[in-house]
């Protein structure tokens, strides 16, 4: 029983390939997820109870079941129906890559929608009233006040959600995708060095997470700069 660093070095480029796929999955799912989440959040925050109830079932289902079930439902489940197999959707739904992106996007959209709803409801009431007093229409108010404001409020929580999605993306390896985890498993099947490879993959996840956290900090300082604003000491 020995620890072999040489195996890690030998397969590092392949692990890096896997890491790129992981980043790609997180990026595209995050993007689609947020596009879906904003209208859902606006519906959830509306005063109309019909509008509020519609996204509830969707959010409840995706937050209450494991991501693995959701991936399998889309990847394996869709094949059960001949209607889907004969339709134009099938070329997309038979690819594990697209199934992973669909599952991750729907999953993160459900979580993000709740986060954004919380942010919208956290906007001080006075700001809404002021925009109404200024005669803004509802659409203008959403575009100019509610969305920019809630974006600043939700950002710290949303960056956390993106980190959770980075970890969730490891599940892509269960539907044969060669992301960072999938690549590590493939290499292990050949070299039988599980500890070394999983260690290397884990370290790569840590580095990716570290870089992401660093970027979020910088962005947070930029987006919410009013919170970090300090008076010039010479002007006091």
């Amino acid at each position, binding site marked *: *029983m020995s620890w072999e660093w040489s195996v890690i070095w030998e397969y590092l480029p392949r692990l890096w390939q896997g890491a790129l796929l992981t980043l790609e999955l997180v990026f595209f799912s995050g993007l689609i997820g947020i596009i879906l989440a904003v209208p859902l959040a606006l519906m959830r925050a509306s005063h109309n109870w019909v509008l509020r109830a519609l996204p509830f079932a969707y959010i*409840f*289902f995706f937050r*209450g*079941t*494991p*991501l*693995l*079930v*959701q991936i*399998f*439902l889309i990847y*394996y*489940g*869709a*094949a*059960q*129906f001949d209607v889907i197999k004969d339709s134009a959707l099938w070329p997309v739904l038979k690819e594990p890559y697209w199934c992973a992106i669909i599952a991750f996007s729907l999953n993160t959209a459900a979580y993000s929608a709740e986060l954004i709803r919380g942010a919208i409801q956290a906007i001080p009431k006075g700001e809404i009233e002021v925009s109404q007093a200024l005669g803004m229409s509802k659409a203008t108010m959403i575009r100019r006040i509610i969305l920019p404001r809630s974006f600043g409020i939700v950002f710290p929580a949303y960056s956390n959600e993106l*980190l959770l999605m*980075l*970890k*969730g*993306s*490891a*599940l892509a*390896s*269960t539907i044969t995708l060669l992301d960072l*985890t999938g690549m*590590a*498993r493939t290499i*292990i099947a050949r070299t039988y060095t*599980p*500890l070394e490879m*999983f*260690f290397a*993959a*884990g370290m790569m*996840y*840590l580095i990716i*997470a*570290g870089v992401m956290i660093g970027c979020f900090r910088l962005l947070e300082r930029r987006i919410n700069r009013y919170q970090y604003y300090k008076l010039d000491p010479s002007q006091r």
Partner: protein
Amino acid sequence: MELQGFGHLLLSGTWMTVQLAVSSLLIGLVIGLIGASAKLSDSRILRGIATGYTTIIRGIPELLLVLTLYFGGSQLIMLVAAWFGHDDYIEVGPFAAGVAALSIAFGAYATEVFRMAMLEIPKGQWESAAAMGMGKIQTFFRIILPQLWRLSIPGLGNLFQVLLKDTALVSVVGLNELMRQAAVGAANTKQPFDFYMAAALLYLGLTLIATVITMMLERWSKPELRGSRA
């Protein structure tokens, strides 16, 4: 939804999922308490170890943890056993690896919940306990711990929901829990959608039960709210 006589399989899988989640919860709570105490201790080494533990575990995927402990667990344990002069082959089963991985992951997040809760307890309580002649350990078990539960229940409830959903990952290493039994049913009947949907609904039921229990515990932990209308 036609389960073609595989329903009992799903139910036995659900029972295994519950066992897995509760075992991991209990061990994870102990790890969390130890972690939080270490993070708030005066020793720089203990603080460093606890911070390293939470940072690393919260940064790597749970699936990777499950795979590492299942496929590398025997190696790891045999390494430690060899150190004590024991050279037999030791195998780590999927249940043990699953509980280990899930409780380590749960413990890292629970550490933060307990740490925040401990910080919420006024320092004066430690001081008055010391003034009464209690030692640090005695103060922890008699004064701090009973209050810690009430402050941590909301946070721990959320973490348990995450844990419950993460149990599905252990199916990847072949434990016969809900997800795996659904896969068996799907393979035998060629009706994957029905079986995974049934599994999803069972998970939904489990998370719903967990939410209700958390709400009951929260209410029970706040006697001042009892009798009032929420």
